[in-house]
Structure formats: structure tokens, C-alpha cells
């Protein structure tokens, strides 16, 4: 009986494509760079092992958590969440029109539209690439210490984050519904709001809720530079070696972030499976 492979024109294909000399060199260089980066990052197994007892010492000194300043800390934690919420909402509101301008193929191909496209993409990139801590420092200088500076920093960071993902999700939606409405004589604005935005809505919701979770975590850190919230309380507790109070704050932050994540998941599922409009 003839072998089945006899009738085939080609032989069995290679499981993996053999890399070319240049590609192979690039892989080796990449691997070398990663190893070098471990060195640059000060990676030390001995420090990791010797750090174990120090961590155990910290935990023993931090336990049980101190409940003495619980009312004041709760107020600061609530303020932290308020900063995150308001900053995220402001950021989403600003990022939506920016994302429409920054989405490829959504607006007309005129010179003015191209200028707006480039400007909005540049602005989003600037907001995204500069870390929120830097924005917080800038706003502390411009509007003063306190939660307002933190809120503005979160808003700007959210514009950078949501602006990019909103634009990408609008670029990725199926073009069919837009074409159908264009064929029916709809104008560009109507087409965007009727065909593109509803199709991109699941991505908008997921991105927005993720932005809120991200902002909640960020708002804790922003307090360290005087931009309001519970972060400053944590810094003071650590500076004064009041580890029991620090542990209380860490656990409160953990609970807040967990709550926001869980509620975000619930909201996401309810909205995405909700009744049609």
C-alpha cells in the first residue's frame, strides 16, 4: 500500500521557521539585554533572603493594626475615593471628544481634520506618558496642596489612558453599520453616535471602570506628594515608625481597591447584559 505522503507535492512543513542570521542575532541581543537589566535593577537573591526576617519583624511590629484613628482615617479614605471618582469622571468626559478626533478614519479626510487628529493624538500621548505623580507635583505647585491637585492629576492621567483606548476601540468596530447609515444619507456625526459609539460601548465601559480602579490606586500614592487623600497619612505613619497605624491604612486601602474592583465587575456585567436602547 502506497504511503499517503507519496501523493503529496510538498514534504511535511517545518514545525518552526528557522530564524535568519539577523533575526537570531536580535533574539540573542534581546536575551542579553534582559539579563543585563536584572543587574541594572539591582536584583539580589541574598538581599531577598536577608530581607525575609526584616519583613517578619515589620509584620510583627505592625500587628495588630491600630484602630485609634479610625474615624479620621475613614474620612481620608473617603476623600481618596472621591478624588478618584471625580478625576475619573472628568477624565472620561474630556477623553471622549478627544478620542473621536484621534480615531483613525472616523472624521473627514480634510486638512483641518488631519490637524485636529494629530493634535489630539499628541495631547493624549503627552497625558499618558507623563506619570500621574509628576502631574500631581505640577498641580500642587499650580493650585496648591490638597485633594483638588490630586483630582486634576487623576483627570489628566485618565484622559491619557481612556483617550487612547476609546480611540482604538472606535477604530476597531465593524464598518458595516456605519456604511449602512451613510448609505441611508446620515451625516458623519449621526453615524458616529448611532453606529460607532454603541458598537464600542462595551470597550468604553470596561476601560472606564478599569480607569476608576487605576485612579483609586493612584489617588493613594498622590497623597505622598501632598495631593490630598490617605497617602499622606501612610507616609507620616511610616516616617514615625508607627507600623500598627500604617498596617491599618494599608488594610483600608486594600479593602477600598477590592471593593472598587468588585463593584466595577458587577456594574460592567449589569451594563453589558442590560436591556437594549
Amino acid at each position: 500500500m502506497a504511503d499517503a505522503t507519496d501523493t503529496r507535492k510538498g514534504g511535511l512543513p517545518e514545525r518552526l521557521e528557522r530564524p535568519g542570521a539577523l533575526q537570531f542575532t536580535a533574539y540573542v541581543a534581546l536575551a542579553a539585554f534582559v539579563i543585563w537589566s536584572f543587574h541594572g535593577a539591582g536584583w539580589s537573591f541574598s538581599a531577598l533572603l536577608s530581607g525575609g526576617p526584616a519583613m517578619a519583624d515589620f509584620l510583627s511590629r505592625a500587628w495588630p493594626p491600630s484602630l485609634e484613628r479610625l474615624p479620621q482615617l475613614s474620612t481620608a479614605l473617603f476623600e481618596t475615593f472621591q478624588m478618584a471618582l471625580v478625576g475619573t469622571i472628568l477624565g472620561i468626559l474630556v477623553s471622549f471628544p478627544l478620542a473621536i478626533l484621534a480615531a483613525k478614519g472616523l472624521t473627514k479626510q480634510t486638512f483641518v481634520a488631519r490637524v485636529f487628529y494629530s493634535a489630539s493624538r499628541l495631547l493624549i500621548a503627552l497625558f499618558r506618558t507623563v506619570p500621574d505623580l509628576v502631574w500631581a507635583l505640577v498641580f500642587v505647585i499650580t493650585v496648591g496642596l490638597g485633594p483638588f491637585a490630586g483630582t486634576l492629576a487623576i483627570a489628566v492621567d485618565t484622559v491619557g489612558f481612556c483617550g487612547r483606548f476609546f480611540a482604538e476601540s472606535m477604530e476597531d468596530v465593524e464598518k458595516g453599520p456605519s456604511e449602512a447609515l451613510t448609505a441611508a444619507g446620515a451625516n458623519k456625526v449621526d453615524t458616529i453616535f448611532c453606529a460607532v459609539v454603541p458598537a464600542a460601548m462595551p470597550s468604553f465601559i470596561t476601560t472606564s471602570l478599569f480607569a476608576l480602579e487605576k485612579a483609586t490606586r493612584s489617588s493613594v500614592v498622590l497623597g505622598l506628594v501632598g495631593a490630598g487623600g490617605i497617602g499622606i497619612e501612610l507616609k507620616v505613619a511610616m516616617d514615625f515608625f508607627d507600623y500598627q497605624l500604617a498596617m491599618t491604612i494599608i488594610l483600608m486601602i486594600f479593602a477600598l481597591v477590592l471593593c472598587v474592583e468588585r463593584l466595577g465587575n458587577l456594574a460592567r456585567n449589569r451594563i453589558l447584559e442590560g436591556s437594549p436602547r
Partner: protein
Amino acid sequence: MMGQAQMHITGAQVPVTPPTAQTADKRCDLSVKGLRKTFGKDQTVLQGITFSVRSREAVALIGSNGAGKSTALRCALRLIEPGAGSIELFEQDVSDARLQTLRKLRADVGFVFQKHNLVPRVSALTNVIQGNLGRSGGFRGWTQFLAPSALRNRAMDCLHRVGLADHAMKRADQLSGGQSQRVAIARALMQQPRMVVADEPVASLDPVAGHEVMELFHQLAREEGITLLFTSHNVEQALSYSDRVLALKQGEIVLDASSNTLVPSDLSKHYG
């Protein structure tokens, strides 16, 4: 072929029979002359085709995959910019029309796509209401809960005409293929079109749903005097539901004949 007159189309001698539909009149709703379209540098899809669709006439455009059917329909509404040639819709020039004029002309044509192209996640009713955007745009036409009562009522009438009034609040992405295509037809009806253009409207449907959808088109064309231009791969359907058949092959019109002078084998040879 069966004694038809010969007519010069795009440089080729093609057998032609005048439309026999009693309902068709002499006005042309769509007139295409020398339409050319090339994608990229050298992928010529349409080689200067010429055809017309008379008012209240039902015309089937057939041809194998890649023959240029969809491109021709899209060029007719300038959803794709034509390379050369002239296009007239309702005796108005489309080729050089300004965007606002073009939108008004498009509003008179209900375009039904192969994949229905409904907006997902919103209701069937909202999809139908959006069919009116070409007539009156603005946020009140975006969704059913913002729409004026008169618009909602008209949209419900359209859904009723396609037998889906009880599915008005169902999400478009939860409808079956046949139901989706019916909603797409209702959306086209919402435009109160003078002409319906359907690009392989039953290609993604099972035979029963496909037959139902074609019957619906037939009924609309006959009862409401709407001009119909549709593409199809199904030669029996093309003959049953049209007054006239055009065949496209390699970007050229190779047949333009009355349906009642043709048999399926006359069309089958234009595939492949």
C-alpha cells in the same frame, strides 16, 4: 437570443430585451454610463459598465464572486468613489454631487446589505428609527427612547410590515439571520425609499429564510411601486423576482435581458 434587439453596451454586443414589467415606466431611477473602478494600481474591477434601472422596475444583477457586483452598487451611491464614468440617481448627477446633495439622494435609496449591517447592542426599533437619519438628522433620531412619538410609530409600522413588531425591543445582535435581514429591510422602508438596492440580501440565510426575504422584496416592489435592484448568486431567484437580469463578468456587462425570455441555464453560464 430569442429575437431580442442588440444594444451596444460597454463596447460589447450584448443581447437585450426591453423590460416586460407592466409596472416599470420610462423614467430611469438609476443610470450608469461608462463606470470604471480600479483598486490599487492595476486591479480593475469595473471596466466601464453602462446600465440603467427604470422606475418601478425590479432588476437582478448576477455574476460570480469578484465580478464587480457589490462595487457597482456601492459606486452607484458613491459609498466607494468611482474611477470614471457618470452616475445619475433619479435623474440627478451623483458623480460630482456635493455631500449634502448626495445625502439627500441616498436618503431616497434603501440599501440592504448581505450581512444586514445592523447596529449591535441596540434594539431593532432603534435600528429602524435610524433609517430616518438621512431625512432628519439630530440626536432625537439616534435612539428609540429619544425619538418623537410620530417617528416611533412609523418605525413600528415598518417593523409590522416585515412581521417583526413583536421583536421591536429585542437587541439586534440577538436576532436570527432572517430576522436581522427583515429589520434591515424595515430600516430601508423607514427611509420611504423610491428605490431599494440589495447586495446579495439572502446569501447568508438558509433557503427558507432567503425565500421569505425575497418574497418580501417582491411584495414591496409590486405593492408599493418601489424600484428594486438586487444582486444574487441564485439564478432561479434572480429570474423569479426580477423583470430584467444584468450579468457581470470580469467587470463587464455581458447580458441585459428580460427575465421572462431567460431560463436558468442562460444565467448559469455567466458563472465561472
